[in-house]
């Protein structure tokens, strides 16, 4: 039996039919993989994740989930929609959009309630997750009183409580302090160790080695420009520079100003 979770063939998408967001994307994602999608701002990472989550559909090409083509009409079928949403969870880049309920607790349990999970089971999962993410103390707090890090933890809990087989994460560490960023990375690793497929869109190059088996790189032309093992991609300095994934790091040694590309390549030597 095939272990393919997602298959994308010649997928293109544009917003309002005018603003190109993805062009001729071909890729496969297998069960249990840790895949990272990298690329500069505006290259289509979020669009690709939304497509994998069945929120938008290609203008051209085919997206398959577990061998079945995803089409908008399929989501009108309650059984299919519920089954798909139980299997695939997406952490949005903008936590303000993801957390729409009045309190943290209500937001976390929103997903499993809609999916018809047993309330006692939801309660157990909820208690386990808030302890794991260290958000027990803020469960009754309104969302507008949370810090960015707390919002991200709450949003992550809202996705993880569904216990999806595939976790899609859109910029999960952007704007977070190092300790919260560490928590997020640990959660990704733990989920993958439990057999879940994790697809992360990011341009935080320093976490890629930890959270990826394979890297997919989207370019400014909205195409998939490179794909391969993390070490291979990270060693290709020219490619990273060409795609705005490394920058010049300026610092001083005594009185000398030193300038070199900053790419965490030392981890891959």
């Amino acid at each position, binding site marked *: 039996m095939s272990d393919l979770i997602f298959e994308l063939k010649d997928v293109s998408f544009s917003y309002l039919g005018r603003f190109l967001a993805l062009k001729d994307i071909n890729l496969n994602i297998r069960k249990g993989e840790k895949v990272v999608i990298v690329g500069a701002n505006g290259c289509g990472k979020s669009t690709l994740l939304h497509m994998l989550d069945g929120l938008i559909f290609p203008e051209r090409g085919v997206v398959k989930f577990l061998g079945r083509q995803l089409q908008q009409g399929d989501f009108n079928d309650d059984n299919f*929609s519920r089954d798909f949403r139980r299997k695939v969870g997406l952490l949005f880049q903008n936590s303000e959009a993801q957390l729409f309920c009045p309190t943290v607790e209500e937001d976390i349990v*929103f997903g499993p309630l809609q999916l018809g999970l047993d309330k006692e089971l939801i309660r157990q999962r909820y208690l386990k997750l808030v302890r794991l993410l260290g958000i027990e103390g803020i469960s009754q707090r309104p969302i507008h009183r949370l810090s960015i890090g707390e919002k991200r933890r709450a949003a992550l809990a809202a996705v993880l409580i569904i216990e999806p087989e595939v976790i899609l994460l859109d910029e999960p560490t952007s704007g977070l302090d190092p300790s919260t960023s560490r928590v997020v990375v640990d959660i990704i690793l733990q989920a993958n160790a439990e057999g879940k497929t994790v697809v992360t869109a990011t341009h935080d190059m320093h976490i890629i080695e930890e959270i990826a088996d394979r890297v997919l790189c989207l370019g400014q032309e909205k195409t998939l420009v490179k794909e391969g093992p993390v070490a291979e991609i990270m060693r290709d300095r020219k490619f990273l520079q060409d795609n705005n994934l490394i920058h010049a790091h300026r610092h001083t040694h005594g009185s000398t100003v030193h300038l070199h590309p900053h790419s965490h390549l030392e981890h891959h030597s």
Partner: protein
Amino acid sequence: MRAANFVESFLLEVSFFFKESILSEDYALRPGFLQAIDCRLRVLGILVILLAVLFSRSLYFIFFIYLICLFLTSASKVELGFFLKRSWFFVPLFSFFISLPAIFNIFTPGSPLVGFRVFGFYLAITRQGLKGASFFFFRVLTSVSLCALLMLTTRQNSLLKVLRLFRVPQIFVMILGMCYRYVYLFLELLQNTYLAIKGRVGFICSLDKKQAVVGSIIANLWQRSYHLNEQLYQAMLSRGYRGEPVVWDDFKIRPVDWMWLFFCLVISCSVFYWNAKID
């Protein structure tokens, strides 16, 4: 810091009002008497008392309920000074000035208490007029105080949940909840947008420029809210929303909650005794 001009002070005042009066839940989170009562029965109890106030024909009964309201305020760890200021501020606006003309003989004829002449016209404050106006004033005062106490001691979220008791459609309750959730976000956005404009162009002096700034802020806010609306709907779909939201109902009613409701019913039923005494 004092606001520099009308636009800025307006934005700051609106923002402050919402944050303080709608979004502040400090009192609702205090370990007071009313806060400990199940919010469904809390609302029901206050409603029952409100009905009694409306049906009462005895001013003494209304005074009695007002005293109970003040006692509940104190037992719920709400500072009496703050509470009186909050409830008495609106009462003159809505009832005192409205009921003032009713005390004169032109509107309510009856036995005069004090009479005087204004531009040749004879005006008198009548006993019946004064009684009617007092009724109106104290009825409004007591009702407003009870509602203010309920709002102060109950979290917005719980109040929304209680709407389900009255068979309000779930989708409506959810939209209301989202309004509360996003009002704060948009207020911050509004303030930040204004500060960003001010930071770039300095103090905006002419009326034309002020109008242009307000217009651009409104347009910006509209665009952002529209964009957020799309994202929010996608986030809901992503978590299994199918058009009819299912909600987390974790209310628990204890014996003390039933005692509260019984107390409210007894108080309310006593209105018949007071009314009968008048007859």
